[in-house]
């Protein structure tokens, strides 16, 4: 098991990284917050810390800190369009429920 990223998400990450002009990839993580316990973190990664775990998918490096990894095992990051909105979506098999606002989730 690992963390995967769909081809369309990878395409968007790569183009955003190129536009930004720096960064080694994408950092995924979880932090305790929101109304339901945990929230996702989605950031550009500027450096690989020694404890980080890195995944390669469709030419994009995805970096995860070891504390977040168990919460994200098996997660697929997708890029989706919902009406006028488009953005990234976590498909996380570990999630038990989400709060109403979709900001945070529980495992």
């Amino acid at each position: 098991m690992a963390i995967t990223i769909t081809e369309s998400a990878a395409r968007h990450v790569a183009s955003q990284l190129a536009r930004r002009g720096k960064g080694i990839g994408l950092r995924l993580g979880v932090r305790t917050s929101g109304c339901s316990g945990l929230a996702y973190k989605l950031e550009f990664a500027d450096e690989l810390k020694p404890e980080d775990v890195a995944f390669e998918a469709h030419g994009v490096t995805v970096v995860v800190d070891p504390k977040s990894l168990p919460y994200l095992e098996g997660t697929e990051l997708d890029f989706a369009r919902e009406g006028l909105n488009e953005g990234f979506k976590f498909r996380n098999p570990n999630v038990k429920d989400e709060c109403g606002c979709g900001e945070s989730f529980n495992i």
Partner: protein
Amino acid sequence: MALMQIAEPDEARAHRPRRRAIGIDLGTTNSLVGTVRDDGIAIVLPDADGRTLVPSIVHYGASGVAAGYDAVAAQTADPQNTIVSVKRLMGRGLSDLADARRFPYRFVDAPGMVRIGTRDGEKSPVEVSADILRALRERAEIALGGPVDAAVVTVPAYFDDAQRQATKDAARLAGLPVLRLLNEPTAAAVAYGLDHGIEGTYAVYDLGGGTFDISILRLTRGVFEVLATNGDSALGGDDFDHRVFCWILEAAKVSPPSPEDTRLLLLRAREAKEMLTGHEAAPIVATLSTGQRIDLSLTAAMFSEITRTLIEKTLAPTRRALRDAGLEPTDLDGVVLVGGATRMREVRRAVAGFFGQAPLTNLNPDEVVALGAAMQANALAGNRGRDDDWLLLDVIPLSLGLETIGGLAEKIVPRNATLPVTRAQDFTTWRDGQTAMAIHVVQGERERVDDCRSLARFELRGIPPMVAGAARIRVTFQVDADGLLSVSAREQETGVEASIAVKPSYGLSDDEIARMLRDSFEHAANDMAARALAEARVEADHVAMATQGALASDGDLLAADERTAIDAALARVRSARDGADAAAVRRAVEDLNRATIEFATRRMDRGVRQALAGRAIDTLA
């Protein structure tokens, strides 16, 4: 779930406005103020005339207080009301001052610290220093275009607590928000970027106008430790001027000169000394009040010869400092020169010869302490980006948080947060009518409180009784630049408050910190399971409590067999809750939920009926 966009790492910091941060070198003879410009370059702030130094002189005149250059002239005209070298008096009682008679002041003995009688009344050294600092603050505010947000003031490494406290008080009195006092040699090392190294041992050789200090510093993982200090409080650049002055008298066969001629010749002596830093010879030309004309040439070789004993006088304390530190001259990784007098080639040669390596000299030795203080102030104020190297001293080694229901640690201040830092989070009550909240402050990376280190406990009392979840309790963690943590809790509705102060790094060695960190990585999966179990238990307790309450108030709505089924489900929740299987707990809770659906509907109906009972139809719009 909501669609997300990729965020900049640490976006919050990027949007924070820059804070006006200054570093102050509060010297015995001269003081300076520095800042770090937007482009990251540290500079010393000049006055309108381009002068960077502020003479550490305060004059209490008939028409008011003057500090700096404005007070220089009064030094000879009104010596009793013109305070110089006040730094020597900081935190000192009259009995501490062996050389009290050397000062022309009317000293008044006072408990704790000596006071000086002036036209403006009795002044403590703290007040006099505050007047100097006020002049520096005003200079900074003009240059930076607004009030100073953060200041670092330097003190000699050998200053004791009383002297440091006096310095801090003076800065407060001058309206400066002091984030930290910094040792002068450490500031010099910071200015040279030595704090970016991993570790090393450095000597800071500080020859100022009237004092000589030598400090041996050891850098270990970003923290400077002062291993030894030594010096001579009556040796400085002025003594070199005096040697040249004596040489002039001898070479030109001048009979004892008048005070005016003395001042003139001392000035010429100083000019010659300064010229010799870049030339092989310096002319000394003057016409005395007696009509005698002096026309001499001082060669570099002669200068070296007449000042050799002075140089030698600096090396004796240097040897002592090294011996105290248990080091040989060649053990050092670098030597930093501080103080205008270290521009002399003789000093540089002597230092290079003594330590067997060329000293660091590329920064202005007058400014290097103020520059380092400015860099430190800038870092402490949080103006540096995440890409920069931080002094490890100034980050939290392990996360700080508190215990929440179920024995879970909720992190409030994350590991590696830069100091000073303030973070707040809202919590609520868990039980109906709960009037107190126990706050357990913990440190560590693990999910469960039992695996973290307990720092402190306190209670917030006097929360007004409300239904569970209605109270809003803001818990604020604040860690100051010295690593002191204070935690406060405040109920937002009533304003009741409780707080505690703790020293978060107390008693934790570097090894322990490293082990706690490693553990948190290795146990990530266990921690997640523990978190799941704890959360399931919280949920189980919650449902059980709610069911219990409902049975007590509305148990009559149930038939006997329905009641038996619910009681059985409740018992299963309770026994599963005490087991270690999170999934089993969750299943039992779901079973109980299912068993009570019908009961809940009936209770709702009854609730609605009761709410409507006795009301006229027309009030129900």
